[in-house]
């Protein structure tokens, strides 16, 4: 329900500002499960997969968080990748709207590896003022427009 409000473009940092996913999971499906299922249950899949991966070393790609990030976090027109601390980040856009506070990205990469390696280059690093993760994760970054 909340997501359908989001997808109607009621939020700044709404879908029009979020770079589209690659949508290339397989030849016949864009995402790893139908979109309605993913909206409601993505965390169940991720939670189940995390135990299999950490404990058993199962490294399938279908429900891997790295896979989600690689597909969904794509560069914008300026070639920049959003961080989780920004409302144009695919995950953050909905979590902010629904006031869900998750801690996945306190440890996990919020962008694909190429974006992170790039951010570590000294000249890039010097230029950016990186917002503190929790400092910016506030509901106030959202403006409603309906």
């Amino acid at each position, binding site marked *: 329900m909340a997501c359908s409000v989001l997808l109607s473009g009621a939020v700044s940092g709404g879908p029009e500002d979020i770079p589209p996913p690659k949508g290339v999971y397989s030849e016949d499906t864009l995402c790893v499960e139908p979109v309605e299922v993913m909206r409601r249950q993505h965390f169940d899949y991720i939670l189940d997969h995390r135990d299999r991966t950490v404990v058993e070393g*199962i490294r399938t790609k279908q429900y891997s968080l790295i896979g989600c990030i690689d597909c969904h976090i794509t560069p914008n027109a300026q070639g920049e990748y959003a961080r989780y601390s920004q409302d144009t980040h695919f995950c953050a856009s909905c979590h902010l709207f629904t006031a869900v506070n998750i801690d996945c990205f306190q440890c996990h990469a919020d962008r694909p590896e190429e974006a992170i390696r790039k951010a570590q280059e000294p000249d890039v690093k010097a230029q950016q003022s990186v917002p503190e993760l929790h400092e910016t994760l506030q509901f106030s970054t959202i403006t409603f427009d309906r």
Partner: protein
Amino acid sequence: MSTEPVMRYTLDITEDISVERRNFTQGIAALAGLTLAPGVFLYCAAEAKPDDQAVSSQQRWGMLVNTNNCQEDCDACVSACNEENGLWSLGRPATDAQWIRKLNVKDRQTGHVTSMPMMCQHCEHPPCVDVCPTGASFRRVDGIVLVNKHTCIGCRYCMMACPYKARSFIHEPLQDQLPHSPRGKGCVESCTLCVHKVDRGDNNTACAEACAKEGHQALLFGDLNDPESEISKRLEQFGGTQIRADLGLNTGVRYQGI
């Protein structure tokens, strides 16, 4: 400790294996065709396990350190580990994470300096696992000792229990962690024996690769359970010392020349 994953939800998660298999075979094809120079191909002998297969106790991964080859002034293994696992410094060396460090030990009688890297020894009977109140510190069935950061509460008992001072605690928020190396504030961490590389069939660790690249060949990674592996053959022929063998931990990292 049971290695069964904790199932909190009764979801029917049947992964699309055909896609996995295809990705897997494509990966192998890419490996097999890796061109080093025109006409020279690298054929990778190591078999990667299929992605959907759990690790097994048929393997026990370990490392052999030949201290006679280790150079006093070299820290290529340490830099490689930091680079591989995204251990960027926060500018506070006292609390920066160290997964591997270099030790130089001088014999006062002879003046001989023995140089060696020290990291988690991937004990068969790990004290860090014994003391962990949540089961977060665990030994994977293939011998790799890890921290499950999802259940680590940051109590640091394991750090006190480890005889090798192998573990680090993360004191402050981190950013820009690498995808294969999640790590963050409030959790303990240590050498993972490059578990992400092991699982994709690299059959090597970042430190051992870097050491070989320097031409020192002091680090050898391999399967201690496979009698045909290079590490097993060398251990059988020349032996390998456990540091603090008196503790009876049966370490997976063995040393020669100490």
